[in-house]
């Protein structure tokens, strides 16, 4: 394969990738949503306590604990609070301040409202694609 051809293919791929990336950055799946400050703070609380080490959101994360995408609507705020404060035989109790706890709950509510992670809700098409 001549060098010039290699360079052309490489540059074409890089251009396509850059365009794809830029398009995704500028047109994210959810647009024009105002940033909810409390949900944003809750996200930071989620991250700073490394909840993702054990828990999943949309099936992504650790496997020691359950997926929490829809825990807010399924179990409610009080249930979540009790678990975070009291811990379990496996999970340590997290000493969150009231402010951090409220923020975490708003974040989990935000996650819950974004969709469902339950694989039973997916429709499977004959061509191998799926639909929520």
């Amino acid at each position, binding site marked *: 394969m001549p060098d010039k051809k290699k360079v052309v293919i490489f540059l074409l791929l890089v251009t396509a*990738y850059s365009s794809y990336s830029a398009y*995704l950055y500028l047109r994210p799946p959810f647009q024009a949503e105002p940033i909810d400050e409390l949900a944003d703070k809750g996200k930071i609380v989620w991250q700073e306590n490394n909840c993702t080490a054990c828990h999943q959101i949309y*099936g992504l994360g650790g496997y020691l604990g359950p997926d929490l995408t829809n825990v807010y609507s399924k179990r409610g705020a009080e249930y979540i609070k009790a678990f975070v404060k009291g811990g379990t035989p496996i999970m340590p109790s997290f000493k969150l301040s009231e402010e951090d706890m409220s923020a975490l709950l708003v974040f989990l509510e935000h996650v819950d409202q974004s969709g469902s992670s339950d694989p039973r809700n997916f429709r499977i098409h004959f061509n191998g694609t799926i639909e929520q």
Partner: protein
Amino acid sequence: MALSNNNSKPVSHYFLFFALILLACGVTYGTIGGLQYLIPGYLKETLSFEKTRPLHVSSVVFWIIIAAVGSMLSYLPQHTGKKIYSSMLARIQLMLMIGAALAITIGYYAGIFGGREYWEFPPLFSLPIIIGWLLLIYNYISSIGNLFKQPVYVWMWLTGVLFFLFTYLESLLWVIPYFRSHVINDMTIQWKSYGSMVGSWNMLIYGCGIFLMDKISGEKKYSYSSIAFLLYFIGLFNLMFNWGHHIYTLPTHAYVKHISYIVSMTELLLLGRIIYKWKDSVSTARKYFYYLPFRFMVAADIWIFLTLSLALAMSVPAINVFTHGTHITVAHTMGATIGINTFMLLAFVFDILGEKSYYVKQNRKSIMIGFWSANISLFIFWISLIGAGITKAIWQMKSNQEIFGEMMKNLWPYFLSFVIAGFVLATAFWIMIVPLFRKNPQSANDK
């Protein structure tokens, strides 16, 4: 180990030594994490799972990246026939990486997290990694000169170093509120960056693999061939557009998933080629099997076949909907990071550090025991995770699910199996790498 001593080893060797320490730490943390699956509450108050997991993951990820860089910096002068552009820049990069790794480890022990999967440390700790990587890019490009009349591995290394920086920076976009304002937008970009980042370090590793195979066989025909470049471009195409299979179940853009589904199927060409070339591979294996690094390459080849088959199945959304969020994903990750990445990296390490090591020669038998134990235990580990994944997948689809804790109890036999296999695997790695750290006796150096 003075890095600046003119009589000391090349700086690339210190990258490999540091990477091996990280591997030893990584498998040890992994064993502790495994025990926490088996014994609920084990070390809950001192080293709970939200600390063990990042310690394990970051150690292993840094092992892969730093060993890949060390191998590339070792092979680069062998390819060009001259020293790398600047040993000083490489030394500074290594110091920055060591500093970052220490800060991250101390941070994890102290419970200071950034909390992003795989890169669970605060984003500030990324600064030395980014600066070090910029130095690496400058050093690499200056060492190579130009891309014309270069073998495929030079292209792969360049792709690896450039795309790692880009995807690493992309993985940090969440610090800008615009990108993290909605959980779906954030996760889309997060997994876009991770998917491509894995592809970028694979470019570094596979590039070294092709270089080593050329070196073993004594001919460079393949690395300049059109088929080598065709496979490289397929790999690059997948690196760029195949990341969407991580987020098939995320309510993100449908086109992201469709593009990924179509692109991932081009990997069938790679799988087909492995099967087509199987006979040749077996006869080559017979010819060079006496050579230690080659054995690791053969092991990696088998793991490529197993992992690619699993990855292809998981790339079909209709199958992924069952496997996603289960231990089958972990099996895939372990197959890729241990079976492929680590075995290939150990091939390079034994080629670079082991060739002149007195203790590697003296301990060949125990290294071989380690080699076979690692492969057999990894297979049991892999199968156990698939078994756990299938059991969880059935639970996920049940209309009347028992509670999560009950399902986890049902997985206990699989956890027991993977913890025992994981312990053997960690021990096997320790057995294999310890001789590499031993300094040659004076009598061996005099020969």
